[in-house]
C-alpha cells in the first residue's frame, strides 16, 4: 500500500483506499450481482479499509436509485454520509491535465477519464468497477483496477 512507503496521503494515511464505481453501488444495492452485493456487505467488517466516494459517483448513484423510488436518494445519502468508512470527496477541482492523462491511458470518454483521474488524485489503491472500459482499456500503474469479485478476494486474503 502507498502509506507504507512513508508518503503522506490526504485521505486515510494508514488505510487501504478504494474508489467504487457507480455500477458497484447499484449492482450491490439491487443485488443484481452477487460479488457487488458481497463487497458492500463486507465493508464494515474490515478494519483499515476506507471508501472514497467521488461526488459525481454519488450523484450518478442517487439519480439511478431515484428511478426505482425517490426516497432512495436520502436513504443512500444517509448510508454514505453516516458511516465513517466512507468519505465523499468533490471532484470539481480535479486538474484537467490529469483528466487528459487518463484519456491518453485508454479512457476515451472524458466522463470515465475523470473517475480514473480522481482515483489517482486521491491516491487510492484500487478502483473497483464492472465497467469494461476501466477493466480492459485503462493502463495505469498508479493503482489497481479490479472488479468486485477480484476486490473481495483481495480483501479476504489481505485484510480479514
Amino acid at each position, binding site marked *: 500500500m502507498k502509506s507504507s512507503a512513508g508518503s503522506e496521503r490526504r485521505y486515510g494515511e494508514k488505510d487501504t483506499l478504494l474508489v467504487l464505481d*457507480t*455500477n458497484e453501488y*447499484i*449492482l450491490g*444495492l*439491487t*443485488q*443484481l*450481482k452477487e460479488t457487488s452485493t458481497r463487497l*458492500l*456487505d463486507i*465493508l*464494515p*467488517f*474490515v*478494519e483499515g479499509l476506507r471508501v472514497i466516494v467521488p461526488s*459525481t459517483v454519488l*450523484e*450518478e448513484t442517487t*439519480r*439511478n*436509485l431515484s428511478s*426505482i*423510488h425517490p*426516497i*432512495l436518494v436520502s*436513504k*443512500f445519502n*444517509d*448510508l454514505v454520509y*453516516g*458511516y*465513517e*468508512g466512507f468519505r465523499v470527496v468533490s471532484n*470539481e477541482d480535479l486538474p484537467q491535465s490529469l483528466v487528459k492523462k487518463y484519456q491518453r491511458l485508454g479512457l476515451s*470518454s*472524458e*466522463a*470515465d477519464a*475523470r473517475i480514473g483521474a480522481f482515483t489517482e488524485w486521491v491516491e487510492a489503491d484500487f478502483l473497483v468497477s*464492472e*465497467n469494461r472500459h476501466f477493466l480492459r482499456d485503462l493502463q495505469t500503474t498508479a493503482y489497481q483496477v479490479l472488479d468486485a469479485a477480484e476486490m473481495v478476494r483481495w480483501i479476504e486474503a489481505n485484510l480479514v
Partner: protein
Amino acid sequence: MALRKITLTIPQSLYQEAKRLIRAGYYASFTELARAGIRKELNELYTAHPSLALRAGGLMYLQRLEEIRQIIREAGGSQKTEEEVLEELRRIREEVWRERYAAGS
C-alpha cells in the same frame, strides 16, 4: 503488518504443554502458537456473534443497507439485467458530465 510486543502471564502447566508442542514441531515458536490460538478464538467468537466483528458504526451501516435493499425489493427491484444497468449508468455518467463540465466548454 504492524507488530506489537506484549508480556503474557500463563499457568506453568500451560507453558510446559506449549513447549512440548513446539519441541514436537507443531509450532515454530511460542509466539506462533499464541497467534494461532488467538486467531482461532476470534474466528469462533465472530462466527457465533458476528456483530462483535463490526467496525464502529458498522451495525447502523448494515441496517441502512438492508433498508435500502428492502425498499428496492418492495418497489419491484430494478427490473433490468446487469447489462441494461451498466448501459443505463453509462448514459447517466455522460449526462452528469455534460451538465457539470461540458456546458461551459
